[in-house]
């Protein structure tokens, strides 16, 4: 007779503990303050999720090889409150990103500024996490 687990809420699916993931962290825990980086490329995808939105950008290296970088930046609510919507970030949008590289060498960046073709700089600092451009 199968083990009968009567539960009000069916959470029968086992939640596999994925690799410890980070929601919002102290900047210094994951990014390297001594590795600032500037990336120019075209947007492939925007993840409009809390606690931090993610830009994915194709960047052509000097060797011509294209790498897709993941850029963690501000909280969506901060962007929403500035009137920005995901429709302002179409695929292929040309962006210039400043930020700091991840410690583990992956093509991951904590974005501190995102310049759009029209010159707007989406102030993005991951506020409150000790990131370089921390709000007051």
């Amino acid at each position, binding site marked *: 007779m199968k083990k009968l687990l009567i539960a009000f*809420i069916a*959470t029968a*699916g086992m*939640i596999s*503990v994925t690799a410890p993931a980070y929601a919002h962290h102290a900047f210094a825990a994951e990014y390297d303050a001594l590795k600032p980086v500037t990336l120019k490329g075209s947007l492939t995808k925007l993840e409009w999720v809390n606690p931090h939105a993610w830009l994915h950008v194709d960047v052509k290296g000097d060797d011509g090889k294209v790498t897709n970088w993941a850029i963690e930046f501000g909280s969506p609510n901060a962007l929403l409150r500035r009137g920005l919507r*995901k429709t302002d970030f179409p695929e292929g949008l040309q962006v210039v990103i400043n930020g700091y590289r991840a410690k583990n060498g992956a093509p991951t960046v904590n974005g501190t500024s995102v310049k759009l073709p029209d010159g707007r700089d989406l102030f993005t600092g991951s506020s409150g996490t000790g990131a370089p451009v921390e709000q007051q």
Partner: protein
Amino acid sequence: MNLTTRITVLFALASGAAFAQTSATPDIPRAADGKPNLAGIWQVLNPANFDIQDHQAQPGVPAGQGIVEGNEIPYQAWALEKKKANFKVRASADPEAKCFLPGVPRITYQGLPFQIFQDSKGLSVLYEYAHANRDIYTNGTPHPKGPIEWWLGDSRGHWEGDTLVVDAVHFNDETWFDHAGNFHSEDLHVVEKYSLADADHINYQATIEDPKVFTRPWSINTVLYRRKEKNVQLLEYECYAFDLEKYYP
């Protein structure tokens, strides 16, 4: 007429009178502004969270008469196939199995208690599931400009007589209406109706519109019960903490 019969008669008269008087419109609590007062701790008794349609019992899943009016969900053809596919993988694909926010209206009939706080500006609703909360504004403000994709959407309410009508938009496409795979798109538009049947019961109705997925709007309808236990309060269901707690003694 001996003593005991007279007592019984008196007994019946006293209670009969009391009974007749309240079968008139039940008195519902009202807030200072005269609106029905929904404040309190509420919960459903039906197993709609498993399946909002009529369903048989399965291990761990109680049987239930559905809450969908007419018991039929008007999926477009492709969408019905997707629903069936969802059903097969529901154990892992149900967003609730991943401890994600359940969306609206599922959060109402999820089977855990929630507490409504109410004032003239609106309702603040706290849910025991993953300490979720919803702000239901009744101050006439419009939805913020879209497109916005939130798990619990944006809710703006107004009173129509003694019924609170809540318009909810700005949903993402990741929540299910139940554990059985019923789904929607980010174009979901929900109109909830809360009306006190009496002091201890709310008639809750929600109309679902999503032209991307359904051929017409459809509605669910259920009863919310006021929790009556002495000193009852919300506790916690920190769903995604269960696997981590052992690391933080």
